[in-house]
């Protein structure tokens, strides 16, 4: 048999039909929905007088549009409240499991999927959200879709997709102190460019990737979309199986060992061909930060902003971007004042991220000028942070742990960064206005966010770490 990549193995085993001269019809094992990109899809079903074909394969949560304070009270904004209520109503009408606000299973869709055991190796997973690539950390083919495709999945459990090409990114070597999964992916994106992986599904491999926890792997796969990739995935291994053994759902527990045996086969064959291969040295990566308005505009925190656009990008866009950020070419940004710090999102809103932030701020105090939003990715993460004493450490240092949601990552709720203000943010996008009209976002790791939170300026987190 011809050697195959992991991506090909999963994709090919889910092809229901290959349309001649066109795309494949792919069966979807797991479908996540949320309030923002699903209402028009349900409307479509009603117009066609259709039922949801396999309701048990779809899981719903409210995350994008919800407040992160006083979640026990009704949502103040009427339009937002209506959208969340519409999701609840649709789930009831079409018999879909729904984790609404205050449900102990509620949280950001890409945080709850894995932690509730819905994300399993070898699956195809889609959601009307580009960061669905997160689930690839478990060796799944997971990718974001639009609302027309959400309707397709609800109606048929399938979507019609052209098969992407394959790229492998290998990262060998040992990470330096203070360098996290977030720094790895910001570094890779800065090397590949914002559109450099468009048309590809990316497999991440190498010793530096294997050394990461599941949380770290999720951060990496989460941001594969930021270099244009259709998705990213990592072959499951002992780290994956250990994580899954703790979250596996009751009905699968008796079969867990035999499932693991099958999952162990989910890897790229030796000699399998990729359409593109990139290799990076993990040892060279430093804590990263972005200075522009796309996630590829990143650099090591102690470097200077480049003189002109890199990666053959257009200089007009580069200069427009710096102008928006209030930065100048060739200048360092270390020491630049910061107004806001946001820790959270499907990229860095997991327990490990809160631990990292709390570990650095422990025994220190929030800088006077800083407004901080520390938002757990789910109810489960929130509860764990309380149980582990993280909430107390934060309080002691002058921070407050909020309630779960997407929050300031896309600022659909009231968690907006004001115009012109600088925010060091652990989220995934620094686009113009992403965190509020005129907001200036600097993407970084939870450690770098913590360093900014206690100093009030862009600071190198390595200065605050004990061996």
């Amino acid at each position, binding site marked *: 048999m011809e050697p195959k990549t992991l991506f090909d193995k999963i994709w090919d085993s889910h092809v229901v039909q290959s349309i001649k001269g066109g795309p494949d019809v792919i069966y979807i094992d797991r479908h996540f929905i949320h309030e923002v990109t699903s209402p028009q899809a349900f409307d479509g079903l009603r117009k066609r007088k259709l039922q949801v074909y396999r309701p048990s394969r779809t899981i719903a949560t409210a995350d994008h549009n919800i407040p992160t304070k006083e979640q026990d009270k009704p949502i103040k904004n009427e339009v937002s409240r209506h959208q969340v209520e519409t999701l609840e109503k649709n789930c009831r009408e079409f018999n879909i499991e729904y984790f609404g606000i205050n449900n102990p299973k509620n949280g950001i869709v890409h945080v709850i999927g894995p932690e509730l055991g819905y994300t399993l190796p070898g*699956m195809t997973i889609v959601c009307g959200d580009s960061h669905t690539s997160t689930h690839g950390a478990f060796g799944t083919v997971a990718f974001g879709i*639009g*609302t027309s495709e959400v309707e397709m999945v609800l109606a048929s459990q399938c979507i019609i997709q052209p098969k992407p090409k394959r790229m492998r990114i290998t990262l060998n070597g040992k990470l330096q102190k203070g360098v996290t999964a977030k720094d790895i992916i910001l570094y890779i994106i800065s090397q590949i460019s914002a559109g450099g992986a468009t048309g590809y599904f990316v497999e991440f491999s190498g010793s530096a990737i294997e050394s990461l926890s599941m949380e770290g792997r999720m951060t990496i796969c989460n941001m594969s979309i930021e270099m244009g990739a259709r998705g990213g995935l990592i072959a499951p291994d002992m780290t994956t199986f250990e994580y899954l053994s703790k979250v596996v759902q009751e009905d699968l527990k008796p079969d867990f060992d035999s499932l693991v045996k099958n999952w162990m086969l989910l890897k790229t064959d030796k000699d399998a061909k990729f359409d593109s291969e990139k290799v990076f040295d993990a040892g060279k990566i430093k804590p990263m930060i972005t200075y522009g308005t796309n996630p590829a505009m990143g650099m090591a925190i102690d470097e200077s902003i480049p003189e002109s656009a890199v990666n053959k990008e*257009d200089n007009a866009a580069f200069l427009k971007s710096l102008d928006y950020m209030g930065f100048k070419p060739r200048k360092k940004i270390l020491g630049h004042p910061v107004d806001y710090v946001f820790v959270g999102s499907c990229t860095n809103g997991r327990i490990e991220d809160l631990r990292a932030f709390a570990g650095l701020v422990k025994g220190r105090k929030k800088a006077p000028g800083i407004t901080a939003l520390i938002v757990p990715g789910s109810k489960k993460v929130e509860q764990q942070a309380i149980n582990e004493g993280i909430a107390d450490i934060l309080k002691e240092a002058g921070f407050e742990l909020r309630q779960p949601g997407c929050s300031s990552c896309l600022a659909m709720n009231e968690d907006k960064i004001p115009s012109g203000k600088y925010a060091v943010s652990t989220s995934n*996008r620094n*686009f113009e206005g992403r965190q509020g009209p005129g907001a200036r976002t600097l993407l970084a790791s939870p450690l770098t966010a913590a360093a900014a939170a206690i100093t009030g300026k862009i600071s190198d987190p390595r200065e605050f770490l004990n061996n």
Partner: protein
Amino acid sequence: MAKEKFEILETTCVPLQLENVDTDQIIPARFLSTTSKEGFGENLFRDWRYDKNGAKIDNFVLNNPAYSGKILVAGKNFGSGSSREHAVWALADYGFRAVVSSFFADIFRNNSLNYGLLPVVVSEKFLGHLFKLIAKDPDTIVRIDLGQQIISLPETGESESFEINQYKKECLMKGLDDIEYLLSIRDLITTYELRNTLK
């Protein structure tokens, strides 16, 4: 459900000569709280089109009366970022029927094809030429012939062919719908499910 058919489009263009235009710019997240597909056009490129006080920003191309038409010509990696199909609804609601660029972000391209906004991929060279011509003469006409898969400039006779998968081409030309197709192959889907119990 039948959609408007796409065959030949001949129109002036609106040039947006910027790379990496993301879907947060096309339609900012704060306008996504609605539950319908209607009315997104008025907030298309909202924060580039209007200032904080709602006044038009003169130097943004949509506010320049010299430019109009049903084709948006944009820099490479158009539609990157969020998967929101609302970006496509906003462009279509504003009146665009096609977007021309040297490459599109994957999800945006799929969303466009699914909704009936034609993404036309041209070479960097052709795109650069197009920008120059439109800058010189905003009344430059561009013709897109989907059947022939050719984009051309009727005045100069220049043209380039473009790729599109045959399934999607047929859907667009005949106004066909993916869900009707998927419903028509339900037997295949249930056969697949029987072969793959407990996935």
